[in-house]
């Protein structure tokens, strides 16, 4: 599984920035752009490709803060912080969700390369934080277990 993932994310080593691909436009005040192709993807590899990269490198400069186990998949708190210089964008991918891409954020200069939000997880899955920094793609991955809860279901 791990080997496969690395392969998928590393092929090519593309350097096309999200912004350059028209995925995220920091200057778009109304935020009318919505990358349907990327949000329709159903695997990490597809999403990375749809976001304009042919690959991404694992990096310790990308940090995911989230619980190892979620008591409920409807709300999973997740924060992503990038220590990489010139971080331009952060995306959150959930491998086993029906649609992989959950959210992407354009980070203009002056804004911390940090976002915290809450996402839905259909089942136990890897979460990827994909970061575009200085035009290159980096990522971190963390497994979050989603537990069955309550009674009567």
């Amino acid at each position, binding site marked *: 599984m791990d080997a496969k993932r690395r392969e998928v994310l590393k092929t090519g080593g593309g350097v096309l920035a999200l912004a350059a691909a028209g995925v995220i436009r920091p200057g778009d005040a109304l935020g009318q752009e919505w990358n349907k192709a990327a949000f329709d993807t159903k695997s990490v590899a597809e999403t990375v490709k749809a976001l304009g990269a042919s690959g991404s490198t694992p990096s310790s400069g990308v940090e995911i803060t989230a619980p190892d*186990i979620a008591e409920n998949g409807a709300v999973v708190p997740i924060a992503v912080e990038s220590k990489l210089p010139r971080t331009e964008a952060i995306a959150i991918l959930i491998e086993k969700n029906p649609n992989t891409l959950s959210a992407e954020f354009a980070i203009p200069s002056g804004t911390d390369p940090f976002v915290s939000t809450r996402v839905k997880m259909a089942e136990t899955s890897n979460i990827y934080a994909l970061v575009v920094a200085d035009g290159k793609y980096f990522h971190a991955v963390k497994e979050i*277990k989603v*537990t*069955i*809860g*309550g*009674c*009567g*279901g």
Partner: protein
Amino acid sequence: MPSKTILALALSGICVAGCATRPSDSETERTVAEMIKTSFRTRGQATVARLSQDDAQALCSKHAGELPKGVSDGIEKAQQATIRYPSSGKLMGDWREGERIAQSGVGKQFTDAPNRPAGGSCYNCHQLSKQELSFGTIGPSLYQFGKQRGASEAIQKYTYGKIYNAEAFSACSNMPRFGHNGVLTEEQITHLVALLLDPDSPVNR
């Protein structure tokens, strides 16, 4: 009268004022009976008839504080007589099917489709396989249940009977009488027996 004494003792701890004028038991009973009649309504398969208690339910409600030995023995004896074993004589089904039943908590709620088979809700209260981290603790852990006991005919019979009617072995148990109350079919119970006793089941590995 021991139940009344217990009730009075329990209440003495919380009454701040006017305990002397606390309502009589008969007044409380009348009020409760009225509430049960007026505060619930039939919805879907959950009819108001479900609030008519059988003997065991009535006794367990009445003696919730402490169950006198005589009452408990009486319940267990009466419940023993209800257990029906499968006519095929086969008590061990398929543990894989059993695991699915153990995971499912649906069944008999007014929001459940009446024709959909009920689950056993087992993980709600018990640890079973090691892989499932989300398990309850109202009942004891059943991990390695079969490994510790083997799967002799006597053990199979006990296990089937316990799931069929827990109160036959432990009066006023928290565990539903799955077979007796028609929640699970005989076949479903044999799958759960396999989950608990089959050496290949995750419970015993």
